């Protein structure tokens, strides 16, 4: 099973530091990484190998926790422990810092762009999720502060096609938000994990959502039509992947090309799960398709499928390195 995941390249991306997160550009040609060294690095392919194309530094005063590309690929957002989010604009091969978004009381943990690119969400240890509106003049305005979580918010992600936002928290819950009559509201609270929810990923169609947790499980949630009399939407846990991970699961990524689900774990391993044909659509089945036990020498913090090249996977670790893998089914 180990043979299904082949190492393409290993990069010492953030030496003597942690690499917290990796993210592919929408066309799959660039990779952004960030870490405890307060820097963001941009990687691109030259011939057969991936090389560093640029370093974005001297902007954040503390750890850069996560980065996100805009859907058009021309902007990069970075979330930092310094309580700010930066927007970078790509000009030819250079990135320039366009704007700094202030407002959160402390560490910003995650940032994500809506599918249209008109909205940006950030979340923080201050327990809030902020939705920012982006206009054509590159102006950013906070339109909503959402306070549905009772603890540190770890992750935010948007539905692949709709303006539907999901957040994951240290309070063990997941919240789903939607704009109703010009006002953002929490439409559903997904309860089931027994410890911190670290990350989320929607399936290609957005009908299902995968979550991963400090409770060492991955859960699959499915949207159902609202029950009669209730305006809110309803999400139910339809599958729990339990017993596979030795420690905290820090990240999960659902490939929009192949449907494969990759996980990053504190047990140093990268795993890939595939959905099996199931007689009941309300009870999907997943099987372990690949397991790389020592993918990194320390905790694996993030995994991401290339959006254009099926099976190309990237992972990063506390050891500061990035590994690029090819998953062959």
């Amino acid at each position, binding site marked *: 099973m180990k043979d299904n995941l082949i190492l393409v390249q290993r990069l010492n991306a953030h030496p003597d530091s*942690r690499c917290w997160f990796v993210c592919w550009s929408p066309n799959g040609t660039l990779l952004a990484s960030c870490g*405890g060294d307060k820097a963001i690095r941009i990687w691109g392919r030259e011939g057969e190998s991936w090389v560093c194309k640029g370093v974005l530094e001297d902007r954040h005063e*503390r*750890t850069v*926790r996560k980065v996100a590309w805009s859907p058009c690929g021309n902007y990069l957002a970075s979330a930092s*422990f310094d309580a700010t989010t930066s927007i970078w604009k790509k000009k030819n091969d250079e990135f320039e810092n366009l704007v700094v978004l202030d407002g959160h009381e*402390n*560490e910003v*943990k995650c940032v994500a762009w809506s599918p249209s690119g008109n909205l940006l969400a950030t979340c923080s*240890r201050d327990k809030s999720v902020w939705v920012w509106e982006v206009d054509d003049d590159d102006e950013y305005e906070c339109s909503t502060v959402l306070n549905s979580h009772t603890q*540190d918010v*770890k992750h935010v992600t948007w539905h692949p096609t709709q303006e539907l936002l999901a957040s994951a928290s*240290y309070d063990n819950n997941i919240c789903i938000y939607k704009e109703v009559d010009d006002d953002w509201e929490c439409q559903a609270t997904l309860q089931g994990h027994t*410890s*911190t929810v670290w990350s989320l990923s929607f399936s290609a169609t957005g009908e299902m959502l995968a979550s991963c947790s*400090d409770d060492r499980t991955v859960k699959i949630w499915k949207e159902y039509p609202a029950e009669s009399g209730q305006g809110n939407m309803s999400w139910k846990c339809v599958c729990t992947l339990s017993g596979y991970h030795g*420690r*905290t699961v820090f990240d999960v990524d659902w490939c929009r090309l192949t449907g494969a689900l990759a996980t990053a774990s*504190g047990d140093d391993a990268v795993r890939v799960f595939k959905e099996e044909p199931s007689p009941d659509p309300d009870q999907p089945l997943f099987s372990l398709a690949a397991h790389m036990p020592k993918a990194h*020498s*320390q*905790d694996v913090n993030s995994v991401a499928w290339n959006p254009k090249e099926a099976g190309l996977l990237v992972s990063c670790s*506390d*050891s500061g390195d990035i590994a690029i893998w090819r998953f062959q089914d």
Partner: protein
Amino acid sequence: MSGGTQLENANPVIFERSGERLQTAHDEDEDVHDPIDDREIFDMIRSINDPEHPLSLEELNVVEQVRVKVDDNESNVHVEFTPTIPHCSMATLIGLSIKVKLLRSLPDRFKIDVRITPGTHASEDAVNKQLADKERVAAALENSSLLEVINQCLYTKSI
């Protein structure tokens, strides 16, 4: 440590310190693979200073060798510590000091779990969750005033 202020636990029970580790011929043989054992981990943390008393964690019985479990092959270390009183507000700071000491002393391959001895603190679950969250620990360690307090706890006095 803090002179005029009210101490949370003004008269702690003081425990005797254990002696130095006895060296055997086996220990001195450079050719023998020498895995890290419980005593070695205990020696790394026993002289950490208590944040409010001029005493070590060992003297306050906050750490004990029996509550240290290391598995060198599996690269994991598990330490339980016992706050002196069930409402000790220093519990997170003490746990963080133990964690930082081990992070700095052990090879990177080790997974370090620091938890409160079950049943010995009113907010045991909350403190354990905080100590296990590496993102929050990383953020805490970027706070220079907190880091200074931790470094004071880790500073070993010359005897």
